[in-house]
């Protein structure tokens, strides 16, 4: 299903106003010249011309800390309650195509064999309106991982600004049509157009098939150490990343009452692989960096058939020591 429409910027505003009362809307907002996804209730608050947010929108599905259940002991027995993971339908308005495609990976990861209840319920109520990129920076590399700045993968609706004030709208899914139906008369039907001239030019930086093969075959190499000397082992890269899904389950509280929560975790932390015995199978940072790269391009392909990098460039922009996943892949392409 695919149909094509046009909407003016002014009407987009009205469209937002039509969606707003019944839905939670999450959109990029400018704070101190950086962009973050925030709940918004005014169209004016949305940043429509940003390049990328600091943190991804994965927390809509997979929050930093997610309560799985609360427990409470009374009369010699435990009562368990599972808080509802989502109340209203939620629309992410104006995320970039790379981020939208990350939701394809996320839903695969969380629903493939075991169906995670919280994620499933949230996914059912989640709507994604993506916005094709007019501009990119040199951290962007979606075109190197099989996507492009106008990709509709993972989106319900995709918007591309084609003239000063007109957006070209692709209705990608039924859910997208549902959104349109809030105020269908704001849209005008049109034919499929070639979006390529309206979007950013993102040069391809490596060949992903080649990269997969090379990374598959190299486990022991002095290059891992050489390439990761700067890495300090913080978790920014994983926490900013739209497809990093590692978590740690913790019980918070006492034997009488408390909660079981699922928190983000990062393979860059030394605690990540530390055993109760004290032994750590990945004792040094180069091995952790290797795991990150191999997970993105090898392990997740083995497990889910998908690479787990969408080329948003967040880890590159946010790393305090400028570790660069693209550079690493390029180094291994040269091997």
């Amino acid at each position: 299903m695919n149909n094509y429409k046009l909407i003016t910027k002014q009407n987009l505003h009205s469209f937002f106003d039509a969606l707003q009362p019944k839905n939670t809307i999450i959109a990029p907002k400018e704070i101190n010249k950086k962009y973050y996804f925030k709940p918004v209730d005014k169209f004016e608050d949305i940043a429509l011309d940003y390049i990328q947010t600091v943190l991804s929108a994965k927390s809509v599905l997979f929050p930093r800390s997610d309560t799985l259940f609360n427990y409470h002991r009374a009369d010699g027995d435990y009562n368990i309650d599972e808080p509802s993971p989502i109340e209203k339908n939620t629309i992410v308005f104006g995320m970039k195509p790379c981020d939208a495609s990350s939701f394809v990976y996320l839903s695969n990861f969380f629903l493939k064999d075991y169906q995670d209840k919280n994620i499933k319920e949230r996914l059912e109520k989640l709507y994604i309106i993506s916005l094709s990129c007019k501009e990119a920076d040199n951290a962007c590399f979606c075109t190197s991982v099989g996507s492009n700045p106008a990709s509709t993968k993972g989106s319900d609706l995709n918007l591309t600004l084609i003239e000063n004030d007109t957006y070209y709208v692709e209705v990608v899914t039924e859910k997208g049509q549902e959104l349109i139906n809030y105020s269908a008369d704001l849209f005008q039907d049109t034919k499929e157009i070639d979006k390529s001239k309206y979007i950013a030019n993102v040069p391809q930086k490596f060949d992903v098939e080649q990269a997969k093969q090379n990374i598959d075959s190299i486990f022991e190499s002095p290059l891992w150490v050489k390439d990761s000397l700067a890495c300090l082992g913080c978790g920014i890269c994983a926490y900013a990343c739209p497809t990093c899904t590692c978590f740690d389950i913790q019980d918070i509280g006492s034997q009488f009452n408390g909660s079981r929560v699922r928190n983000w975790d990062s393979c860059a932390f030394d605690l990540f692989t530390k055993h109760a015995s004290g032994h750590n199978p990945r004792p040094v940072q180069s091995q952790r960096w290797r795991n990150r790269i191999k997970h993105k391009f090898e392990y997740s392909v083995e497990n889910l058939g998908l690479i787990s990098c969408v080329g948003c460039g967040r880890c590159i922009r946010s790393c305090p020591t400028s570790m660069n996943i693209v550079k690493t892949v390029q180094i291994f392409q040269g091997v």
Partner: protein
Amino acid sequence: MSEFEPKIVAFVCNWCTYAGADLAGTSRIKYAQNVRIVRFPCTGRIDFMLLLKAFEEGADGIIVSGCHPADCHYTSGNYHARRRWMVFKDLLDFIGIDSRRIVFSWVSAAEGAKWAHLVNDTVSEIRNLGPMKEYKNLENVSSNKIGELIND
């Protein structure tokens, strides 16, 4: 509504204040019942994290007490603790936690009466300050409501 009864946690050293509190008991000096005593080897061992944990567990006020200067069983634990408290108090003030909720004192093994006064004074001061609502409003686990799922 019943009157607010402050919960006070007292972190005391084994050698002086704990013995002082014991003396208050054996001398049958009556004092407020609001205090729960936690015994430590020395004030030098009373880490600031313990004080934070007490607030998290619902304390409205905290007493920290040990041997008078020059009397520490380990010679200098209380001198080190004194410096740490000074700095910690300033940090709490800067963050906006009312540092009047933590009362520091020296109570020796012979000062049962001083202990009883200290507890009574602290209880009435904390009663005036009211419940430690700042901490009580903080949540242990984050909310699952969407919108709040996005850290802001």
